[in-house]
């Protein structure tokens, strides 16, 4: 019994996890986005994280989930209500945990199961609503499932069994002979018709409390064990239900996360759109107003977006001013790719991109304190780990790669790596200030050059526009800016 909100074919449709999730989380600043989506709910966080880091591999899979998301966006209350019922599992389980009421494990197990049954009834009631307006296959299947399985008949049968198992003072158990003839395979049995008459004449043994306290203890122990097996059966029944609630919770969590994020973005006055996904072999990309969602959430306000329409490119080299928005641009592109392939809306007015097999990031690691291997060696080994896992149809983002050595060496290594990737069907976005590297691709018509802009007053616009690499860097800008702000002009050196 399962829901099919995330995948048409259930968990079998789950695509593989991106190769280095930790790097993606850090490099694309996904944490902030996920925190917003989760609104403090760990399950929502984990499920959304998993969805983002498992990019769907076909346009159909994306569209299937997107239809479910559209339903959620137009029925937010019912989706949140269903989620809340399932999410109560944690709280309920805690209330009846063995430590909460140590004295009465049987009663505990019984009460827990009864509470779960109540939650099942709530689920049934929640979808018993004439105003439901679900159009997607995923949500329609779910409603159908709840209506079919949660019938009154089922609830009645279950309550008969519960009554019988509650009679713990008169128990019937069957047993067989084990390997050394000890009793095994104890099974609780329902008492047959005419039970008492038939059993009157049975061989019996009554413990004698005075002569032999061990015997008393044993029989009481056998009774306890039978009751504890009854608790065990109740516990397992509850576990089955719990697994169902958790399954449903996990299926709903992603859409609750999307609701939370969508509402927040709208509140910030920033655009969101459902992207157009192109087949994997397409070399077209369109973006208008593409912005870094995580940055917008951080400054809690609008941020600058970028625009471009290109085709026939598989390498994007981004150069230009320091702190000109290059990393931000890379992040916005990476976020949009992952969000698009998880069936979400993206942070843009308009976005079209090919489906990508996987996403890899190779960002400069300034904070890396582990200098034992040396920076370049560290960069090389990280790149080699990417090359180990990258496959045709993937997308790799380089951010200031191989800048830990001199420009000539760095450029040559970076050029060879980049060319090795693009010539083998991998799309590359590369931010670099290595001029020799960038210039080596001049005149190649599958390369799109982009440049972080600078206005005459030296203030950054944070716009990334088409433009070939310039041979000067903008470090001087930064220098001037910092010294000016500090009230300490350059001096006259």
């Amino acid at each position, binding site marked *: 019994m399962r829901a099919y909100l995330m995948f048409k074919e259930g968990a079998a449709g789950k695509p593989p996890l991106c190769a280095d999730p930790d790097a993606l989380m850090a490099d694309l600043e996904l944490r902030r986005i996920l925190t917003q989506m989760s609104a403090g709910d760990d399950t929502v966080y984990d499920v959304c994280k998993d969805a983002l880091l498992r990019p769907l591999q076909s346009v159909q899979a994306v569209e299937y989930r997107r239809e479910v998301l559209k339903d959620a966006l137009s029925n937010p209350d019912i989706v949140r209500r269903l989620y809340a019922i399932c999410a109560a599992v944690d709280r309920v389980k805690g209330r009846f945990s063995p430590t909460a009421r140590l004295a009465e494990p049987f009663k505990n197990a019984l009460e827990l199961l009864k509470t779960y049954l109540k939650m099942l009834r709530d689920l049934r009631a929640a979808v018993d609503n004439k105003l439901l307006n679900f159009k997607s296959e995923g949500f329609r299947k779910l409603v159908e499932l709840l209506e079919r399985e949660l019938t009154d008949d089922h609830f009645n049968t*279950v309550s008969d069994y519960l009554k019988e198992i509650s009679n713990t003072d008169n128990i019937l158990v069957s047993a067989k002979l084990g390997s050394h003839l000890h009793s095994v395979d104890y099974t609780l049995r*329902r008492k047959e018709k005419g039970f008492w008459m038939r059993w009157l004449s049975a*061989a019996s043994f009554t413990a004698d409390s005075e002569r032999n306290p061990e015997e008393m203890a044993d029989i009481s122990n*056998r009774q306890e*064990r039978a009751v504890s097996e009854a608790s065990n*059966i109740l516990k397992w029944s509850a576990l*089955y239900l719990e697994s169902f609630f958790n399954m449903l919770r996990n299926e709903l969590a992603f859409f609750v996360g999307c609701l939370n994020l969508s509402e927040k973005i709208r509140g910030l006055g920033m655009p969101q759109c459902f992207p157009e996904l192109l087949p994997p072999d397409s070399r077209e990309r369109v973006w208008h107003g593409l912005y870094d969602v995580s940055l917008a959430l951080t400054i809690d306000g609008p941020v600058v977006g970028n625009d471009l329409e290109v085709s026939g490119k598989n390498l994007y080299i981004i150069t230009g001013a320091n702190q000109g928005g290059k990393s931000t641009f890379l992040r916005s592109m990476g976020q949009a790719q992952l969000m698009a392939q998880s069936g979400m809306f993206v942070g843009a007015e308009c976005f079209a991109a090919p489906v990508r097999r996987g996403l890899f990031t190779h960002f400069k690691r300034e904070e890396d304190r582990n200098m034992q291997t040396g920076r370049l060696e560290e960069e090389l080994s990280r790149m080699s780990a990417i090359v180990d896992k990258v496959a045709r149809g993937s997308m790799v983002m380089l951010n200031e790669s191989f800048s830990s050595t001199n420009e000539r060496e760095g450029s040559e290594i970076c050029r060879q790596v980049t060319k090795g990737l693009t010539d083998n069907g991998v799309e590359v976005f590369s931010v670099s200030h290595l001029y020799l590297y960038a210039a080596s691709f001049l005149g190649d018509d599958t390369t799109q050059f982009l440049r972080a802009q600078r206005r005459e007053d030296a203030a950054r616009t944070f716009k990334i526009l088409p433009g070939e690499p310039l041979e000067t860097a903008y470090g001087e800008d930064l220098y001037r800016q910092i010294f000016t702000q500090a009230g300490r002009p350059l001096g006259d050196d």
Partner: protein
Amino acid sequence: MFYSILFPTREQHQQPRSSSEPDCFADLNLDQIFAPILTEDKGFGVSVKKGSDLESFFYTPLQDKDTIVYRQEVARELEDDGLRALIMAFVHKIKGIEEIVGEIRNAITSPLKWHDNFLVRGRLLEFTEKYSAAITELAEALSGLRLRSAGLRGFADYLASYIKSEEFIEMCAHARRLREKLSSVEYCMNIKFPTIRIRRYEGQEDLGGALLSAFSKFRQEDTEEYQSGGMSESQDYRTEATLLNMVAVVYEDIFADLDSFFDKYSGFDNDTILRFFREVQFYLSWQALIAPLKQKGLPFCYPAICADVSHLYSRDGFDMALAYMNRHKAEPVVTNDFTLTAPERILVITGPNQGGKTTFARAFGQMHYLAALGLCVPGREAALYLFDKILTHFEREEDLSTLSGKLQDDLIRLRDIMDKATERSIVIVNEIFGSTTFKDASALGRRMMKALSKLEAPALVVTFIDELAVFGPETVSMMSTVSEEDPARRTFKILRKPPDGLAYAMCLATKHGLAYEQISGRLAQ
């Protein structure tokens, strides 16, 4: 007649054995090597533990070549995965049987009458079944193999005639008949404290099953399925016996047959087979220990055992303790060779520190020790010395606190070694005289070398004093080396070459970036 899988004859088996670690154990890190077998529970699935009577076999290097070869043949044969799996399966099945048989015998001879009850009889039946099944299975499997080693062949023959004996065949048949009848028994208990009633089971419906099936449709694939909470465990033994008596009344004939089985077969076990069960674990535990190393591609071999020093050698040997410690690491284990061809007898190792000298010394000692246990040793190929003892002098950490007394201590220990050593001993001296002046050290070192030369036994000396490496025709000079491209990097290769103190100095300079090329490279920036 077969007696033991560790010794060709009963007499050899009864020679005295050492019950504690030999002196060289700690210095050679043999304690680390055997720790997973003797002290840790590494899940080797065998019961060689400290305190078990198997322990002494690991502490007693053999001095007679026949027994070593007897063991080598068995061990080599047991390298076959199929055969080993067979024996391992047997060991698992027989495990614990000795204790159980003891308990059964105690119960029936107990002065308390109720101790002898149907549960005890049931237990005997159970272990008769396990034991005969394990033995039959092994005997049949072994009979289909062409065994080469005298030990395993002897055991297989023994087993083959054992299972053909009339008594064994009759016992198996009786057990089978009896078990069939017993497993048809199923009864119901009605528990109404403090009374239990017993009747035959008559098809009453499973209550828990009914409830679970009403909920099973909710179970998700990744959620486990119901497991019984184990209702029938840890009962009061005596009450269980009483209830079983009630069941025995309901099923009278079956339990009478159980009585007659018990009377006939209460002494079903066989000493020779149980001895094999214990002793074969000597080999199995070693194979399990080295399995991860072999998997990593490290070579092991059965060395030729030499009674004289005319030609000793090893190819691609390594420190087993270090290799085991690093067994999960990707980097390859460095292997080394040595050769001693008469008149050479003494290996003298010099070269950069942390270059693998001590490791080499340990490996040298370890392979000799392991060879004398009859086990395979690290290396592709080897010819090793049949020694009476291994005498070692390694710097001990606790010595550092009493630095002043250290030279004295060194000398006392050296004297002890020389006192004990015979021409059949192996002497390993690692970094001696480090606490005194170079002049002192080299003078004392020369004295030591002279003594070792006279001894006519193989020896290995690790030293920082170059001249000891060219002491005489007995000495072979070997050096720890550094990489040619990157002098700061140790290769851990110990090569046969003349001592070269300069290389060591250059290595230090390189480590600090002060070699000529490095300096010019820096200045060029």
